[in-house]
Structure formats: C-alpha cells, structure tokens
C-alpha cells in the first residue's frame, strides 16, 4: 500500500528507508488505550515535568484511525480484550503496540479468572515496558527503543519484522 508498493529493490531504498524511518519515528501519534492505573502514569508522562511532547507525542489521538502506536496501559480483562482488539484492527498500518506495565505484559499481579495474562495473547506487541506502574522515564525508554526499532526497520520488510523487544 502506498510507498511500499511503489518501491523496488536497490540502493535508493536504503536512503529512503532511513528518511522514512526518521520521519515516522519522530512523529508518532500515540493512541492511549488507558485502562487502569498505568493510564495515570501515561497522563503523568504528558505533564510538564516529564514532557512527552519533546518526542512529538503529545498529540494523544483517541481515534485509532489517526494514530500510529497504541499504548495499552493497564489490566486488560477478557471483557475488554474484544474492545482492544477492535481498536487495534481499526488502526491504519504501519502500527505498533507498546504493552505498558506488568498487567499488559503478563497479567501482572492479578492472576485471576477475568484477567488476560498478557495482551500478546491477542495482539502482536512490539515493546514491553515493565513496572507497576512504570515510571514515566521508563515509558520514555520504551518509546526510545521503539523509535530505534522504527528507524532501523526497512519499509519493505515491515510486515515480516515483528520481533518484540523487552525493556526493563
């Protein structure tokens, strides 16, 4: 779709890859899927002390059609999983997912009948940020790792490269 189909193989693609990667990583618009306590730390990441707009990400679009990265912040229950998956399906590609917090990464401290033990059971995740809740600085670390992944990935191979990175 779009750029990828118009490009072929060759030396031009590496420069274009770098350019497109640079543009994409510096203008990520997050979709804050703030479900519980981590959402408050996500909001704190946007406050004047830890300023998320220095990375260009203060544009928290709550519409999936207009956003690039979905930050799942909080415990996802089985009832909510269907909703998260719907939102993920509606996002336009290229899209990335950050699992923020212990609950989104692996179920966290809630090992019970209604909590999904990790959102990677139903959405592909790119970066995991650990913490309960992760400090805003930790979330920025995760965002920087994601930016590195975006800038180093090739546009043509986007769909194949889905390895996840773990951040501690």
């Amino acid at each position, binding site marked *: 779709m779009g750029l990828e189909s118009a490009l072929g193989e060759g030396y031009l693609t590496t420069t274009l890859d770098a350019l497109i990667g640079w543009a994409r990583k510096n203008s990520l618009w997050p979709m804050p899927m*703030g479900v519980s306590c981590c959402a408050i730390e996500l909001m*704190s990441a946007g406050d004047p002390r830890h300023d998320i707009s220095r990375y260009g990400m203060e544009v928290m679009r709550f519409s999936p059609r207009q956003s690039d990265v979905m930050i799942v912040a909080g415990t996802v*229950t089985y009832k909510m999983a269907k909703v998260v*998956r719907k939102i993920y399906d509606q996002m336009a590609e290229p899209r990335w997912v950050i699992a923020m917090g212990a609950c989104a990464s692996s179920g966290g401290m809630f090992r019970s009948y209604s909590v999904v033990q990790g959102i990677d059971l139903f959405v592909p995740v790119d970066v995991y940020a650990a913490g309960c809740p992760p400090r805003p600085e930790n979330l920025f670390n995760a965002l920087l790792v994601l930016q590195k992944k975006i800038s180093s990935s090739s546009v043509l191979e986007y769909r194949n490269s889905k390895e996840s990175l773990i951040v501690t």
Partner: protein
Amino acid sequence: MSTPYNTTEDYFDVPVLTGQLPPKEKRTKLLQALLDMDPDISFDDPLENDMILNMGPSHPATHGVLRILLRLDGETIVNAMPELGYLHRGYEKIAENETYHEFITHTDRLDYLQPVHNNIGFILAVEKLLGIEAPPRAQYIRTMLGELARISSHLVAFGVMAMDVGAMTLLLWCFREREKIHDIFDLVIGARFTTSYTRIGGLSQDITDEGLHAIRAFLEQFPERLNEGERLLNRNRIFVDRCRGTGVISGEQALAWGLTGPNLRASGVALDLRRDTPYLVYNDLDFEVITEPECDSLARYYVRLREMKESVRMVYQCMDKIPAGSIHAHEPKKVLPRKERIYTRMEELIHDFMIVNFGVNPPSGEVHHAIESSKGQLGFHIVSRGEGHPWRLKIRSPSFCNLQALPVLLKGHMLSDILAILGSLDPVMGEADK
C-alpha cells in the same frame, strides 16, 4: 486483512444507523434493559425517533473503562445505562487466597488516584479485626499522608473535569502540582504512585525531617497555585454555564441512591465519616465539613475545591502535633518485626517466618470498617475464620455506588452535558469494577 470478526454484527452490539434495532431475539440483555426502562415514551412518528448511542469503554472522557448506552431523542438523553465490568480483576477472589499483608499491595490499585488512602482503609479494618492499634506517631503520619493523597485525587478530578469541559490548561497545572506530591511520596515512602505504605500495627518506614520539610515547602506554595486555577474557572462564563443546573439530585434522592462523599455533600447532606465516626486522629483536628446547597455539578466542583483547602489546614495541624515515638505497635505475633532484629534474634526470626508464610491469625468473626476517601465511603468487610487469609473480603467501593445514580443524573440533559456531569461525579473504574 484477516480478522476473527467478519460481519458487522460481530463488531457492534448496538445498531449503527438511526432507528434500526436488531430483532428481539438478537438483542443483548443490556440493550433490552435500556429500551424497557422507559416504556411510556410515545412517538407520533411511526418510525421510532430515538437513537441508541454507545459511549464505549474506550473513550477519552469516561474516566476509565465505563460503557454508557444512551437512548437519545435528538440531543436529549431519554435514558442511560452504564455498563461496568471492563476492569473487573477479581479482587475479592484474590483476597481469599492471600494473607492480609500480601493484599496490601492490591489495595493500592483500587482507587488508583489515592493509593495511600486505600492502604489506610484496609489496614484499619485488619487492625480492628485483630484488636490492635497503631501508636500515635503512626496515626498522625497516616492522617497527614492520607490528606495529601486526598489533595492529589481532587486535583485529578479538578483537572479532568475542566479538560472534559474544554479548559485544557488546568489539567497540566493540576498534574504539575500532583508531581510535587508524588515527589513527597517518593521521598517519604519510596514509591511515587503505588505506595503500599501501611503495615499491620504501623507503617513501613518513618518520616524524616527532610520529608516534613518537603511537605511544608509544598503546602506553602500550593494555595497560590490553587488560586490561579480558581481564577481561571470560577467566573468563567463557559464553565459555569455548562455546569450550573446540570446533574441535579436532591439530598433525599442522593441518600436513596447511595451517594456518599463530595457528591452527597454537594446536595446539602453533611455526612463526613471523619467527623461522624472518627478514626485515626481526626478527633484532635479542627476542620469543617463542606456542604453546598445547590445540588448540581457546579456545587460538586466547589465542594472538592474547598475540601482541598481544608486538607491543607489539616496537614499543617498534623505537622504541628506529630509526637515522637515508634511507628510500630508492640504486638510480637501480629506486627512484622524489624529487619535488624530478624537477623540477630531468634524470636523475631520465628515470628517473621510465621507471619510471612501463614499470616497473622486473627480471631474468627466479621468486622467492617469504613473511611472517608476522596470519592466517598470506602468500606472493607472482612469475614475471618481464624486463618491467615480472609474467608471473604468485601470492598464497599464508593465509585460503584455513585455510578448507580448516573441514569438519574443524566435523564433529560443534552449529550454534551454528560461530560460535565460525569466529571463532577468523579468515578474511578478501578474501584467501581474491583
């Protein structure tokens, strides 16, 4: 793009287009309840005029994952049905499998805007069951940090209500102040957000002079910041017009629907558990119970604003009266011993082993203790059968009870009033869904 959902019906529980309802056998119970609740709405037009709008769980302004189904006649709300359960984490079932000490970290995540308060509420219930009392210094510190947590929770309510109505500046200012409170918690407790501060019989660590100094420095500049925020909103034509007269509920109705906390006090009913059934050191403090006679959203906003100022006064009084002493009660088999004694003495080693592995063994019985949290009355009912973990723990969460009044508050208002009303009601879904 292959997805597991292929048809529109799989995606949407409610109709997308106006006037098209699914046939009766395919309707969900929620939709049917929404339609049944007002059977006496009659229309002249044979095509039904009302539209069903889903204000879904993923929404920027629903304070978490709250789903509201609205039945609209144009822009006017005919009926509203909140649906909960999108954050139901099974706290009460988890509590039946954990010791009392292990559950303290879970209580942080209940009302996640004021974790210290939830810790205090739970530990007071456990101490009531065990029949022990924390020493005075611990009680003063608990009160002080509890009031700071109340200030930080009201700041979020303040900021988010203003943002939902349109005044985005205030959210950033409130979060700036909240960061200062988080710094204080970081300094005193060690964690900025999910604190797990209280322990049975006391606290996890003592407060130092540096901590007291930091609290004083924060409190000295806080009223001026609050003033700046007030100057933006109190006489702001847009804010006042959007909030005045919306979400009116009288005092008796509020009691009948189970509202507590600032929502009830804004309807003129002076119920404040800090004064009426005092716990911790509220008996020694001098404070006012703030009520407002008009029962609308603006009154709820004013109550929270004035409560923040009262909390500042209360923290000053606590800091002046705080006594010296230990912060742990002297109950060897129930209170976790100090680490340095565990490594050097045998009795403490054995007690620590027993308490951590098997739990404190309280007597059999049922107790209930309620505190006044920033959302309302937060109560913990513990049924114990003499084991280290509770047989049943019931959390009476104020947001759950406050949300029940939402259909009553919303009926007859316009679509854009929902945000002002929901912001003034201030529910927190972590607590409402347990």
